[in-house]
């Protein structure tokens, strides 16, 4: 450990000596070591663009992507932390920020955040996640809602429908119409665990955001056995019956072609699907994006936010790099650039989305967030590890994914199994 940091300091000194003009004038050149899972597609393109901006501001960008699921990135992070050599900055999100900041010291960003006046423009539930123990140690980068409803234009034509559903009853009626209009599978889906989890959280939060908050975010025992839970599972069963069972364990993106062709009708997915669809060469007029069904007709927003956490380093160049990175991540122009590539919406609620770089879906998402926050209906996503730590999330998703794949389980059984799983994982 001491060897590594000494070498790093020597490298820093060498750089300072080699560049007497630039290096000495403004102290050391800011440098950032970062790890994330974003390596390809729109995510990879976005972080590469962020790195370019970092370099334009005179920094040295050292990003090592770890492709695959977030957990694979976490394994690398764990190894680096245990070796005493954490990256200056890493991707991490949700309650994991609080959990991981207990095992290694993080940077106190309070001064930088205050200087930027950032706290005023971030949704309060989101801000809380990024300041474990009351101090900012992580910064959210972009927001998705996990319960956006994507409607295939061709499937809508087959159903002779032009109005997007608002409540679950509308949704179910539209699905029936699609089915009788010749859409083979009214619900487009993949078969992965988060995919199944999203169906459930969209159902429960759409039926009752208050019940979702109590059951999935606060793990309230009474709420976990409440009537809304049973109704949510019953709705998930309907959704499951409209899905293509053959998708097995496929990723949702495998079936986007069939979705656009009108062979599948509706996709309940996060806004990132827009980035994936555009990246695959489909046009914005092939589909429509609206907020997911909500029985009280006001939009429900299931928050999923990607963030960067900053790990303490002694090297001056890395500290300068962390400061620069923090400033960039909070910058409205950078957030605009990033979200326009990935299909997300900016964390800042004061960014204007009327410009040409934004899609109608993104504008609707941002408007939905504003309305949902006002109605206290912006909740944290369970399926994407925002509501609970990974251990609890996985235990709950186990029950949900089994329910989706097994018709023999009744909603009543699912409710009691879910409550049991929560007890077991506490």
């Amino acid at each position, binding site marked *: 450990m001491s060897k590594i940091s000494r070498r790093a300091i020597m490298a820093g000194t060498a750089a300072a000596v080699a560049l007497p003009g630039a290096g000495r004038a403004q102290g050391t050149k800011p440098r950032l070591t970062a790890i994330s899972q974003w390596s390809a597609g729109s995510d990879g393109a976005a972080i590469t663009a962020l790195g370019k901006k970092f370099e334009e501001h005179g920094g040295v960008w050292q990003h090592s992507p770890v492709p695959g699921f977030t*957990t694979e990135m*976490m*394994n690398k992070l*764990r190894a680096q*932390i*245990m070796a005493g050599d954490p990256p200056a900055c890493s991707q991490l999100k949700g309650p*994991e920020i609080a*959990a*991981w900041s207990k*095992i290694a010291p993080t940077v106190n960003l309070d001064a930088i955040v205050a200087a930027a006046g950032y706290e005023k423009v971030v949704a309060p539930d989101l801000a809380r996640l990024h300041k474990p123990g009351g101090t900012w140690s992580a910064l959210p980068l972009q927001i998705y809602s996990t319960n956006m409803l994507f409607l295939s234009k061709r499937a809508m034509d087959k159903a002779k429908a032009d109005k997007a559903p608002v409540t679950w009853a509308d949704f179910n009626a539209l699905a029936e119409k699609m089915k009788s209009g010749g859409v083979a599978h009214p619900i487009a889906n993949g*078969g*992965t665990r988060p995919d199944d989890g999203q169906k459930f959280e969209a159902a429960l939060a759409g039926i009752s955001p208050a019940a979702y908050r109590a059951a999935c975010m606060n793990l309230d025992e009474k709420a976990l056995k409440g009537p809304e839970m049973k109704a949510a599972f019953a709705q998930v069963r309907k959704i499951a019956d409209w899905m*293509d*069972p*053959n*998708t*097995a*364990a496929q990723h949702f993106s495998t079936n986007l072609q069939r979705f656009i062709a009108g062979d599948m009708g509706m996709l309940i997915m996060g806004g990132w699907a827009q980035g994936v669809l555009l990246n695959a060469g489909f046009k914005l007029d092939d589909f429509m994006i609206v907020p997911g069904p909500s029985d009280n007709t006001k939009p429900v927003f299931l928050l999923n936010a990607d963030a960067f956490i900053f790990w303490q380093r002694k090297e001056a160049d890395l500290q300068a790099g962390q400061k620069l990175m923090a400033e960039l991540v909070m910058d409205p122009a950078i957030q605009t650039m990033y979200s326009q590539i990935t299909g997300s919406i900016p964390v800042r609620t004061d960014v204007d989305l009327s410009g040409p770089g934004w899609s109608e879906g993104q504008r609707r998402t941002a408007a939905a967030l504003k309305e949902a926050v006002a109605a206290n209906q912006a909740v944290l996503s369970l399926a994407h590890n925002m509501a609970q*730590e*990974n*251990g609890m999330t*996985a*235990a709950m998703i*186990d029950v949900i*994914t*089994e*329910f*989706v*794949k*097994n018709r023999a389980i009744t909603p009543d059984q699912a409710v009691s199994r879910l409550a049991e*799983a929560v007890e*077991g994982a506490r």
Partner: protein
Amino acid sequence: MSLTAPSPARSPLAGLKRLPEFLVIWVPLLLSAGHVVVFTVWTTWISFTPSTLVPAEGWVGLRNYTNVLATRNWKIAFDNLLLFGCGFVILTALVGLALAIILDQRIRGENVLRSIFLYPMAVSFVVTGTVWSWLLNPGMGIQKLVNSWGWESFRFDWLIDRDMAIWTIVIAGIWQSSGFAMALFLAGLRSVEADLIKAAQIDGAGPVRIYTRVILPTLWPIVIAVMVILLQFAIKTFDLVRALTGGGPGIATQLPALVVYDFMFQRGHLGRGSAAAVLMLLTLLGVLLPYGAWKYYQRRRAANV
């Protein structure tokens, strides 16, 4: 080694000459044995600590074990291990034996066929799993092909049937490993003394009788060896399931190794993951210790005779 004649007088120079041999054999052996022992002990230790994201100090007794044993995941995984273990080991051995017997008939192109049968062994389990996940997917694989030939009612949807999905893993496993079993069996068949076979022929035994009464009984030691090797394949199976079913539909095809990975790296419970890993080790010992005892008994009996 065979080049150096044993010198009657032990000179220090001779000892020095043999130094490279010692270095090459003993250093890697001790290192790898050390690795296995150290990490096994460490994992066992962690399984008794309250470790979550990173290893932590402390003692929680058997709490991690009771917790793991109470999860549905572990119960399903263990049932699956029994089904998969028996199915995979027995069927792979049978297919391997059948292939070996067919190849043993001195047929033409034996070398080519042997290579073809052995080839899946060279493919990684991830590739096997991915390819079979396409072949077995009813929407694009075998079922769709047969349906498109006109047999519309043909169904082969084990991949998405939670009761049958475990057998898709058995199928892929057999495809991958039966060539290996075949190679061992073939070597065994070829090593049966020709005199024995000739004697049986003279006594008027037909080919079937020769196999069942003369050749196969001498094959027992190889059968046991194949079984034990396949069984430890089965117990540590991980990548095949990850690629083929992802543990699904739902959690229907969980196996212990997946549960260990899941606890350790996805749920952030190093303690519970280690407990599950130790339980896996105990399962393996449950197989290997009787095997060891049997070997010991055999050796004792041979020595006494």
